[in-house]
């Protein structure tokens, strides 16, 4: 066996060296440019990849942030990243054309089997780059696509081991990124250099394979006539890639990876046919996903063994050419079906739109506020007053928002607790915006409207407004208001610090941050609403820091307008 393999190799390598070196029988042609276009795109990947690696930080907390930084904050960063990302698509396309041409030409026939197989390995490596690279961005798209890919691998024999090796343990985490990064920038490039080198070496020893029927023609050197064609083709191919990258403003970047959020993961377009196949296979999806690459790979690897004979003309090799073209057609149809299935899914389009909105918000926040060191997910928490507003959203809005259908308390919104608010309250405490929706509002326990002149109400409102410690309180008005208060209000209320009223709440420090914190903690406390309180206490539900944050937000609302509120942006 060993002897036979050695003989087989020697025969081919000697045959190689006897061939016309670097010559092209029948002269140059634009048909022979694809190999060098592939080399050019590999060069583009190497150069843009080197530049990107100078920015990339492979950890779960920083990966997305560093990619977003290059994309949105470094001049031309989006362009280099776009070349790198879409360049892989270009590589898949041109490698596909190159292999198809080789198959049609029958150029894999003896003694060129090695060249063919090395080419196939190269295609697999390009796909390997795509898989290992897509997860590095650690956004929703890359993160979930990787789950699908690793999921397929894990269902193969020995799958759990493969999965553990790839992820670096049991779960997606820092080691997943460092390992995929190592594969992407060290291991795969090293293997590609070796494979491309071997591929070039073997194919150069053979000389180019002309179209069938040109074999006997006089060979001319590649340089400069074929080389010029190669370079023109490279320039055109690069121009097309550049045009596409500019039209897309580089590669997309979804919101940071979020293990808790559902996402419609889709593989890269050149894996879509597998995705569709799994769909069609139903409960056999795992088998289909594993078997399909084996069948396709087996067919391509086996071609030189079954398609023997020296004649390379297509007419004599119809079954083999038909098999390759048919395979390509099946892949093409499956790919189109997958895309048209998605295009017809209105619900999916809606979810994609929401995901795109989330992505643009995350990226805008990352540019404006930077990404917290605690992780990319926390970029959403950099909006102003995030803690308070998200608590308000879940705990307070139901009873206090003007838009809420089952509001049970006073409206809390922009201008809450300012002078106008106090004046309106004093005039009609049980009206709809105030106690109107409470149980107490329609009983005798509720405060009666204050019957004073408008000027007096203004003074009284100033006294209450001044309780918050607002620096713009008018002392003269406040003192006049205090005189009115002492005459008309002290039966039920007090404005002395820490003193509860008679039947009503104590009003000392009303509207200050500390007062709000205390009220939120326990509205039924004697100093606040006492027995009349209807709002639940939050001292167990919220931490003191959270209550204080909400209090800070309420203080901010006092001077805020609706426009200020809108400017905070969504949560």
């Amino acid at each position: 066996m060993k002897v036979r393999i050695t003989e087989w190799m020697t025969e081919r390598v000697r045959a190689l060296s006897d061939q016309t070196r670097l010559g092209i029988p029948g002269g140059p042609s634009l048909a022979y440019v694809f190999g060098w276009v592939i080399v050019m795109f590999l060069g583009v990947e190497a150069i843009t990849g080197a530049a990107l690696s100078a920015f990339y930080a492979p950890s779960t907390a920083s990966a997305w942030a560093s990619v977003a930084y290059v994309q949105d904050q470094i001049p031309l960063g989006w362009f280099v990243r776009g070349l790198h990302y879409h360049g892989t698509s270009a590589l898949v396309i041109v490698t596909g054309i190159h292999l198809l041409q080789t198959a049609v030409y029958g150029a894999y026939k003896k003694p060129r089997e090695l060249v063919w197989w090395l080419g196939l390995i190269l295609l697999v490596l390009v796909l390997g780059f795509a898989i290992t690279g897509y997860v590095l961005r650690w956004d929703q798209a890359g993160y979930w696509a990787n789950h699908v890919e690793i999921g397929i691998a894990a269902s193969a024999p020995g799958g759990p081991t493969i999965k553990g090796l790839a992820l670096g343990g049991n779960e997606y985490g820092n080691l997943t990124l460092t390992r995929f990064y190592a594969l992407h920038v060290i291991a795969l490039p090293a293997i590609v250099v070796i494979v491309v080198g071997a591929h070039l070496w073997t194919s150069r020893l053979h000389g180019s394979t002309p179209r069938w029927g040109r074999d006997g023609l006089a060979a001319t050197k590649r340089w400069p006539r074929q080389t010029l064609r190669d370079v023109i083709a490279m320039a055109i191919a690069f121009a097309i890639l550049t045009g596409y990258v500019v039209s897309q403003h580089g590669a997309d970047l979804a919101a940071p990876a979020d293990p808790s959020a559902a996402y419609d993961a889709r593989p890269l377009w050149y894996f879509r046919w597998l995705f569709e196949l799994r769909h069609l296979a139903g409960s056999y999806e795992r088998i289909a996903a594993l078997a399909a690459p084996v069948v396709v790979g087996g067919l391509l690897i086996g071609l030189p063994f079954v398609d023997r004979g020296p004649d390379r003309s297509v007419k004599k090799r119809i079954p083999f050419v038909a098999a390759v073209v048919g395979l390509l057609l099946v892949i093409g149809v499956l790919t189109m079906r997958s895309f048209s299935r998605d295009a017809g899914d209105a619900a999916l389009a809606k979810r994609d739109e929401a995901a795109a909105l989330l992505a643009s918000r995350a990226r805008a926040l990352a540019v404006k506020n930077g990404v917290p060191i605690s992780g990319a997910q926390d970029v959403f928490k950099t909006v102003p007053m995030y803690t308070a507003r998200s608590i308000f959203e879940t705990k307070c809005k139901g009873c206090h928002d003007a838009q809420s259908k089952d509001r049970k308390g006073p409206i809390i919104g922009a201008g809450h607790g300012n002078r106008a608010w106090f004046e309106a309250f004093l005039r009609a405490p049980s009206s709809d915006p105030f106690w109107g929706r409470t149980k107490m509002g329609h009983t005798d326990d509720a405060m009666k409207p204050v019957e004073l002149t408008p000027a007096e109400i203004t003074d009284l409102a100033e006294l209450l407004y001044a309780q918050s410690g607002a620096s713009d309180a008018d002392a003269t008005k406040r003192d006049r208001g205090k005189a009115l208060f002492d005459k008309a209000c002290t039966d039920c209320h007090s404005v002395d610090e820490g003193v509860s009223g008679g039947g009503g709440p104590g009003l000392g420090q009303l509207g200050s941050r500390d007062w709000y914190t205390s009220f939120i903690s326990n509205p039924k406390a004697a100093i606040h609403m006492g027995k009349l309180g209807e709002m639940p206490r939050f001292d167990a539900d919220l931490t003191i820091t959270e209550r204080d944050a909400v209090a800070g937000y309420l203080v901010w609302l006092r001077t805020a307008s609706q426009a200020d509120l809108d400017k905070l942006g969504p949560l």
Partner: protein
Amino acid sequence: MADDPDRRGFLKAATTVLGGGLGIVIVAPALRVCVAPTNAQTVTTPTDPIDIGALDRLKVGAPWQRVDVIAPVVKDAWTTAHDVPLGAAWVRRTADQQLQALSSVCPHLGCAVGFDGQNFLCPCHNSKWSDAGALVANAGPALRDLDPLPIQIVDGRLRLTWVRYKLDTAAREPA
């Protein structure tokens, strides 16, 4: 046709120019991206005064005290971090409302300068300064006095402005 030397020369030149141009077009944006941060302020530290504690922590006439200077927010390229140590300063209170602050960064090569009760000493190359921060000649390689930092009192709190100066120069210039 292939043997016409003029035409061959033209083809060679065209190939070289086109190929070289393509190479430049591919490499240029990658280089642009790599040099982009060179003159950018990628790490943003506060330039306004930083709170370093209450005035009460310093007693009039007490020896130099080392305080950490902690920035409330530091933006570093893509991350935003809170409460990040920037360095340390030596501070003392000479009179009720009078303060002095010296950067603990050695003006030679940036090591952290210590105080032994009488003199400031740099552990790296033995440079030495007096109790007032004046350079002791010939003790070590430092070329200037310790760098004073602006410090003020606002509402009973100490506010220090953190400045980094160029190292190893006799004149004091902000870095």
